[in-house]
């Protein structure tokens, strides 16, 4: 197939060619970036929480008299432990994907000179460490003696478990065991390293800090009350949670159950990422509509060109061109136009990505998105042009002898 005559013909239809090229270029740029955004969002929703999500639920009480936290804890821990199906119930200040309750800045020196970042403290009572199901990759597990009473916020001096991500951030390359850090007067010494533990929110540094978490063992008390971690068999968890929520009315009539926060961790996770999923859905919708509109544009223009060139097609057929020749002519023409569009579109895609990077904290568009986008558009172009091209191929040679 000779490309020269096709290019010559396109030069005759410069305006239409430029238009369709621009349309494909824009489509390519939006397509690549939208796909990238979708993948980004989906990746964010797949963050590893590090806890046994399908076996855990949170229960949160509000509106109680804060001076009676000790009594409330005793009633709830005692009352819920008796419910059938409850494997464990423990006090904790916050759970992954729930409301945050222990966010503070830390320093790696006692004078508060070396700022280590804003992290989340999971303050948990006895049983909560085992219930969470976090995986210890270095160091020991908390011993009964590690659970100390809390005057305010956290115990004054405690052994803590940090995530691998936080350890790597604070002490890159070093062994974190035994390392110390501070927040105000509170002193912490690392006793173990956790594989994963996602904090309630991503934190100020964005999604990269989602695992900057510290587990602090502590005794339940006035300062550690009203949020409870319930563990049950995954199959029974919804029923156990429902029973527990119902039981709260009799166990703690003086408090109000926060029903939005009293959910299984799975539900909390789903709610937490709902906006991301909706956005990914919208982007998929936009891509579909975009490809559809582009395809319609190609169909419309190709049909017009086929009709315009009926006589020429007839002449070519009369001179011995086969149906295949005509079909391939239109397919090659479309391939060329789409290729122009893609070349321009790749530049546009990068420009768009740069704009998104400055406004939305997105990483750079990986290069492999470009060939994928190109393949998709080539396939789309060929598919769209097939109908008009087949119609062109069906033009009988006798047309050449008629005036249109």
């Amino acid at each position: 197939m000779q490309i020269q005559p096709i290019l010559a013909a396109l030069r005759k239809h410069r305006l239409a060619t430029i238009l369709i090229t621009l349309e494909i270029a824009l489509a390519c740029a939006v397509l690549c970036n939208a796909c990238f955004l979708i993948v980004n969002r989906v990746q964010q929703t797949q963050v590893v929480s590090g806890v046994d999500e399908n076996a855990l639920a949170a229960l949160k009480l509000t509106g109680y008299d804060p001076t009676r936290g000790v009594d409330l804890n005793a009633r709830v821990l005692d009352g819920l432990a008796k419910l059938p199906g409850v494997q464990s119930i423990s006090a904790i200040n916050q759970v992954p994907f729930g409301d945050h309750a222990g966010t503070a800045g830390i320093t790696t020196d006692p004078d508060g000179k070396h700022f280590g970042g804003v992290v989340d403290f999971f303050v948990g009572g006895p049983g909560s460490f085992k219930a969470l199901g976090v995986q210890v990759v270095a160091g020991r597990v908390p011993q009964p003696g590690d659970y100390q009473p809390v005057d305010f916020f956290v115990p004054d001096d405690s052994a803590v478990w940090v995530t691998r991500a936080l350890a790597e951030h604070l002490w890159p390359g070093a062994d974190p065991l035994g390392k110390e850090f501070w927040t105000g007067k509170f002193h912490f010494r690392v006793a173990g390293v956790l594989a994963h533990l996602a904090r309630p929110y991503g934190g100020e540094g964005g999604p990269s800090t989602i695992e900057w978490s510290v587990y602090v063992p502590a005794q339940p008390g006035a300062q550690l009350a009203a949020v409870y971690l319930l563990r049950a068999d995954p199959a029974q968890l919804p029923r156990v949670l429902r029973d527990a929520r119902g039981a709260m009315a009799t166990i703690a009539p003086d408090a109000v159950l926060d029903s939005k926060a009293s959910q299984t961790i799975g539900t909390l996770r789903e709610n937490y990422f709902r906006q991301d999923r909706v956005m990914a859905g919208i982007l998929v919708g936009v891509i579909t509509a975009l490809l559809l509109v582009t395809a319609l544009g190609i169909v419309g223009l190709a049909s017009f060109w086929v009709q315009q060139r009926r006589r020429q097609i007839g002449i070519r057929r009369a001179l011995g061109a086969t149906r295949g020749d005509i079909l391939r002519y239109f397919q090659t023409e479309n391939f060329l136009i789409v290729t122009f569009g893609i070349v321009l579109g790749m530049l546009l895609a990068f420009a768009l990505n740069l704009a998104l990077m400055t406004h939305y904290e997105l990483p750079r568009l990986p290069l492999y998105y470009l060939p994928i986008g190109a393949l998709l558009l080539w396939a789309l172009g060929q598919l769209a042009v097939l109908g008009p091209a087949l119609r062109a191929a069906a033009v009988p040679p006798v047309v050449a002898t008629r005036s249109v």
Partner: protein
Amino acid sequence: MFGYYIDLAWRSLRRNKVLTALMVIAIAVGIGASMTTLTVMHLLSGDPVPTRSGTLFYPQVDPDPSPTASHQPYDVMDYRSALDLWNAHRADRQAMVTSSQLRLTAPQVNLPPLMAQMLSTTSDFFPMFDVPFRYGGGWTAQDDENRARVAVISSDLNNKLFNGADSVGRTLRLKDADVRIIGVLAPWWPSPQFYDVAGGRFSNGDTAGFYSRPEDVFVPFQSSLEINAGGFQPFTCWSMPGDPVHLQNSPCVWVALWVQLDSAAKVGSYRRFVADYATQQKALGRFVHADNTQLRSLMGWLDFNQVVPSDVRLQTWLAFAFLLICLFNTVGLLLAKFLRRAGEIGVRRALGASRAAVFAQCLVEAGLIGLLGGAGGLLLTLFGLWLVRSQPIEYADLVHLDTTMFLATFALAIAASLLAGVLPALRASRMTPSLQLKTL
């Protein structure tokens, strides 16, 4: 002539139904997508107090004693600074605000206790923000002074507790204190809920929470400190608070101050007043960064907090890129359509129609497509807004199509199609009649 062109356009559109349908669909889809996002954007970036937002200002000072200077003062103030500035009464109106949660019951109403959001504020809040009342009214400066146990409740809470009846004079139990209802608001939902906006720059663009409903109960500031002691959450603290129950003297920021300044001169003098206050506090040893003060206007403060969620802005850009693609598509199709009628145009030109006449005729046809596309786009916009409303987001209930956006839909559709029509129409009007007549 215009009527004749419309008739011609209509005939032409009916002649090639598939091509017409393609163009109308392309415009409708593009308009539907962009108008849906634009409507959401319009609602979220609007002025929450259209009557006087130009006179509302938000002072900030920096009470952080740490020697390293922070780039911006904290988003809200510590209690003492806010109270000092409020007590000075240097503005035309001023109101302290802070929000907290507490347990609420209504005696004689058979409902379980509920957790309500309470706004602690001062008497100027209601006239300053044009808050509409259904029954009764706000409290007076005297009530602020006397720590009166009074409350104003929202229309939602009034409906929930008292089925919308006039509840002025009835009693509410807030935590363990009884307060007397003195006012019930008419439905009031500023978008965004501007007076609580703070911390937008730390939210990673997830600012949908700024569009939640206003608080259920409004209580005089000092009264609320007594009623809900221990229930207030600091925005942040520069060191660990010694007494978590009473935040008044804690190293924490948690109170916002809004002021109304009716003239540019007053704005200038208030700016100086805040700066002078900071200098004076530095002299007293309480402040370190006396020069770190701000006085932003309401809209400036909203901009600073980037209140429009970044997802919404992204959707808007996406929708406009999409509309652009739809436009390119329409230009291509219109070009095909007009040039196909080369013979017909040749005849018209030969019979004496000027280039301008042909151009006008083509544009009328493009405009008609835009009108049809606009109608389709309107339906798609309504569908899109319905989709937004069905999402579990704070501003879902706010989303609706107002008259401005309804008209804007058609204006945008017709403008877009005319824009798309200019190039093809120009090409059509430039054709040489003789050449076209020969081929007939």
